[in-house]
């Protein structure tokens, strides 16, 4: 297995936030993770990326233990839940940040960033400073900054939470393409069921500090506790409510 997490534990004061958490993930797969707010998702990602130290447990990447390595030695990128842009850098420089660290030549950086900005629909915003952007724009910058460096593992903490559905869809396919193209393995935290289903090769559900990974998507769809059925019912009822007129529209 490419990524293995063994029996991770974390307490804050007396609160057991992550408890005996274990799972595995194959290379180039995406694991979508759902879970109630405050259940420990962010803490888990931070432990995997090395930003928070687990009280116990291990993390293996490609067979090597990385539990105690520095974040920068893991070749994993953690994408913060809040859009944490560098306030002293322009949007261009924010996106280029990881590339600059690699001392790639400026011309190449410019090309890559411009292309990424196009995909992110941010090509008009490159000269702005972070505080001049809208919430969704900031989130996209943050996403672009992480993915542009083609990390072997990408840990995403609700990367598209502030996007409208259209933009969100385009970002989702961007993500899909890039992970495929660059063979990226990823964990993808989201609160959106649809997104979880679309993005994940596998789906995990986190509860009480523990992560349950479903054998297959079907298992997930079959689990009554996930809320999928409510969702389906909602849209179904809407269809009925909207009547034939809507039905026509849909079937066009």
């Amino acid at each position: 297995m490419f990524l293995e997490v063994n029996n991770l534990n974390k307490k804050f004061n007396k609160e057991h936030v992550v408890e005996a958490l274990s799972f595995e993930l194959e290379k180039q797969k995406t694991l979508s993770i759902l879970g109630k707010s405050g259940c420990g998702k962010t803490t888990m990602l931070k432990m995997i990326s090395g930003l928070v130290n687990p009280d116990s447990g291990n993390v293996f990447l490609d067979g090597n233990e990385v539990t105690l390595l520095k974040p920068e030695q893991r070749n994993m990128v953690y994408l913060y839940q809040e859009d944490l842009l560098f306030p002293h850098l322009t949007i261009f420089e924010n996106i280029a940040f990881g590339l600059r660290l690699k001392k790639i030549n400026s011309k190449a950086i410019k090309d890559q960033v411009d292309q990424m900005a196009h995909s992110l629909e941010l090509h008009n915003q490159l000269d702005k400073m972070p505080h001049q952007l809208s919430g969704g724009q900031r989130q996209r910058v943050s996403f672009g900054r992480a993915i542009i460096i083609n990390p072997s593992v990408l840990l995403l903490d609700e990367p598209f939470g502030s996007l409208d559905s259209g933009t969100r869809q385009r970002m989702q396919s961007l993500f899909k393409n890039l992970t495929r193209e660059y063979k990226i393995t990823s964990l993808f935290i989201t609160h959106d069921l649809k997104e979880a289903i679309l993005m994940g090769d596998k789906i995990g559900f986190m509860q009480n500090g523990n992560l349950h990974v479903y054998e297959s998507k079907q298992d997930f769809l079959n689990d009554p506790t996930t809320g999928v059925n409510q969702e389906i019912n909602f849209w179904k009822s809407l269809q009925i409510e909207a009547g034939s007129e809507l039905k026509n529209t849909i079937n066009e």
Partner: protein
Amino acid sequence: MYKNWRAYVLPFLVLLVLFPFTYLLFLSLSGAWYYPDVLPKYFGLRNWRTILSSETGLLQSFLMSTGISLAVAIVSTLSGFFISKTVYYHPHKRILNLLAYLPYILAPVVFAACLSYFFLKLGLFGNVTGVITAQFLISFPYALIFFSSFWNERIKNYENLVSTLGGNTLDRYFKVLFPLAKGLLLVCFFQTYLISWFEYGLTSIIGVGKVQTITIKVFMFIKEANYFYGALSCCLLIFPPVVLLYINKKYVFKKIA
């Protein structure tokens, strides 16, 4: 009415700030200014000529002072910045913070009096190294505490962000921490520069009057009876930092406002 009031206060404050500089310069150019005259009977360069001719080596003193102060400011600002990070992220930062205050409890002159024994033993008496070390000992804690307010959760997140994007320690400092702390670094640099530039009591004890910084050279006159020379000495002390400030103004002010 409200707006008007404010429009007057600001120019007034500016005048208030400029007044001492102008007045001291004026006083240094004056002579024969007896009570109750509002203006002096003599105005000219006499005092300056007298002092500049009797104080040989003023230029060397000036250069040496600049060197000492730069060394002290750079070393204490940087070490204060780095060490304050470990101190204020440390689990026992409450105790450490308390310890950091201790050097302040003794006033520098008293501190120097109590430390001179050790400096003598270490051969740090009467030389530039000793003076730099002594001045560092009082400016370092200042810098250390100065940066305490900088370290917080958000800064930590930024730092982590660099790491997760693949940046090493140098990147963390040069690409994020220094730029974010630039304003504070500059203020601290300036303050520690001034602590060193103005330090008299400690320098005179540890330097035994042999390390003749510009401050040592001219402070005597301030304390003497002749206030025209006193004003002149003030000018010699004050204007170099002001010029420094002016030259760096673009650089200093960009990040602070």
